[in-house]
């Protein structure tokens, strides 16, 4: 059942939230040994929360728009013990067993709407990864083919929805970490515009790019979850006063105008992916919309800008993990001082990929190199934003488009280990997704058929993207192409 269907049935008293939660936990226990999407099942908290939902319904109260919906929470979103969310480890030994004294606003909004947390989703360490292989708590596998990656970094969130454990999971997206795993697992993943979902309680990776969003099985559920998640938060200084969202999916009178990004339809994307984008474009036309070709000549530079901006911010954000206030402290030898403690704790607590990005970020930001790398990346970032704005109708261009259409990934899910030894190849997985993060825009990946590889049908995702605040129209386009 979808999240919308579960909530409707629970609110109507036709289904018990306790039964729904128990069934979700049983699915996880029965299947997850092969997938490893869930780091921790939060059974006691889930059953207590579900019982409260049922009691509210019995009293004639409305528990909310997500009443009784079982959800997985990515392991980098803080949940306090009182909210029954288990530990918050961010996929890292550094934070193994960390119990947050507070709950992230995004999680709080789900709970307030009646959602029930059944577990913590595995993820690439500190959200750095595109394959689900960089996790201290084991590799997550793709439910469609367990010999392949689920994508990352919201690997467990996407795999958990694809495996049918839950209809809704929370992820975070810094350079594609919601959309790319959603595409590889055959589910829907939405990154709202920056500032529409609070980052309070999200363990920071790259603060100017991080955004929380939903992974679901349907666009309808993505809309439902986004309407719950989006809203201004006084605890997040980057939260927008215009964050609240209400999507009118019945608004079919205004014809959509969608632009297919020419530079994303070349050899950089596989024929199956290009074909999926073309099918999505035809769906827009069949629904009465208009499709035009548009150009983003600097599209490919996004990946270069991103892999300088994000590591620089990560190096700064992760400086807080020094073995003092929380996290792992290494065993010290007699005579070790404060600096020894920092170095030993960080070197033992962080995994290989996190250390690589910290060193890259430190390299790019240090004196004498910041001008060459970091500042130039920030200037190109603005050019990319201007390029997108120039295409968008919502940016004041009468002849512009409502949304952009492009691939989510270059191809289907790759094999476990295939890109693990080549960081650059792994980073290039994000070539079509980083743009939305760099410009602060929104984007959604929608499943668009599959391609047969070695006897297995692997899902393909198509991305609908817009500038800041285009979330509603982007979700509307997603609803149109989902019908293919």
């Amino acid at each position, binding site marked *: 059942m979808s999240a919308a269907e579960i909530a409707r049935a629970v609110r109507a008293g036709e289904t018990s939230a306790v039964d729904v939660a128990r069934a979700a936990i049983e699915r996880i226990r029965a299947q997850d040994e092969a997938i490893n999407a869930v780091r921790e099942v939060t059974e006691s908290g889930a059953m207590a929360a579900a019982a409260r939902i049922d009691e509210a319904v019995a009293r004639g109260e409305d528990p909310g728009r997500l009443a009784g919906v079982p959800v997985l929470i990515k392991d980098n979103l803080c949940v306090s013990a009182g909210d029954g969310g288990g530990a918050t480890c961010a996929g890292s030994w550094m934070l193994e067993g960390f119990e947050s004294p507070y709950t992230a606003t995004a999680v709080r909004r789900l709970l307030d709407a009646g959602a029930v947390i059944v577990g913590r989703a595995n993820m690439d360490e500190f959200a750095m990864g595109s394959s689900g292989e960089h996790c201290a708590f084991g590799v997550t596998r793709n439910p469609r083919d367990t010999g392949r990656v689920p994508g990352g970094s919201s690997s467990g969130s996407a795999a958990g929805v694809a495996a049918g454990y839950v209809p809704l999971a929370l992820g975070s997206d810094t350079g594609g970490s919601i959309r790319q795993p959603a595409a590889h697992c055959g589910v829907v993943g939405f990154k709202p515009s920056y500032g529409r979902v609070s980052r309070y309680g999200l363990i920071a990776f790259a603060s100017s790019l991080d955004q929380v969003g939903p992974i679901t099985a349907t666009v309808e559920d993505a809309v439902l979850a986004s309407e719950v998640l989006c809203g201004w938060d006084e605890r997040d200084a980057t939260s927008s006063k215009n964050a609240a969202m209400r999507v009118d999916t019945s608004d079919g009178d205004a014809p959509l105008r969608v632009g297919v990004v020419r530079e994303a339809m070349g050899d950089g994307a596989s024929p199956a992916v290009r074909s999926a984008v073309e099918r999505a474009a035809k769906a827009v036309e069949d629904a009465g919309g208009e499709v035009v070709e548009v150009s983003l000549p600097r599209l490919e530079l996004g990946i270069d800008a991103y892999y300088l901006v994000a590591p620089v911010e990560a190096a700064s954000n992760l400086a807080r993990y020094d073995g*003092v206030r929380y996290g792992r402290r290494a065993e010290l030898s007699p005579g070790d001082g404060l600096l020894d403690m920092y170095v030993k704790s960080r070197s033992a607590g962080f995994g290989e990929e996190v250390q690589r990005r910290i060193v890259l970020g430190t390299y790019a930001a240090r004196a004498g190199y910041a001008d060459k790398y970091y500042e130039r990346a*920030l200037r190109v970032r603005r050019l990319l934003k201007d390029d997108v704005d120039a295409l968008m109708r919502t940016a004041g261009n009468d002849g512009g488009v409502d949304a952009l259409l492009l691939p989510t990934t270059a191809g289907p899910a790759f094999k476990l280990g295939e890109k693990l030894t080549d960081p650059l190849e792994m980073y290039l997985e994000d070539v079509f997704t980083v743009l939305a993060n760099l410009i602060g825009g929104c984007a959604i990946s929608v499943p668009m058929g599959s391609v047969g590889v070695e006897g297995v049908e692997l899902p393909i995702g198509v991305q609908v993207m817009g500038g800041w605040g285009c979330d509603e129209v982007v979700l509307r386009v997603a609803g149109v192409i989902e019908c293919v």
Partner: protein
Amino acid sequence: MNDGATNAAASSVGEVRRVAALARLELTDERAEAMRGELERVLAHAERLLAQDVEGVEPMAHAGDAGVSGVSGGSGRSGGSAAEGGGISGRSDEDVPAVEPGGVAWVGNAPRVVGPFFGVPRVLGGGET
């Protein structure tokens, strides 16, 4: 696509070690050598950015600079503007005290606690506090 390693500056293992030390990380010989090659490839790829004319373009340090579509518009060579009406960047809240979890909640996850304080090795003289 330039994936060569011709111009990148991460040219020595010693350089990688020095940068890692700035980030309070210690690398094994094997990792330092591997990371040298990895950084070299990533930075060589990023040198495509050098070909862009960015003269007069204001750096965009934050997505908050994106503003609200339909309001802010392009801001390229004329210089970057913050989010006019976006409500994201430059926000200034009232300075009002708020109730937050107490000290015990915040030190509860520390690897070593001494009374209500974080415990760390002595800065002078060595040994645990």
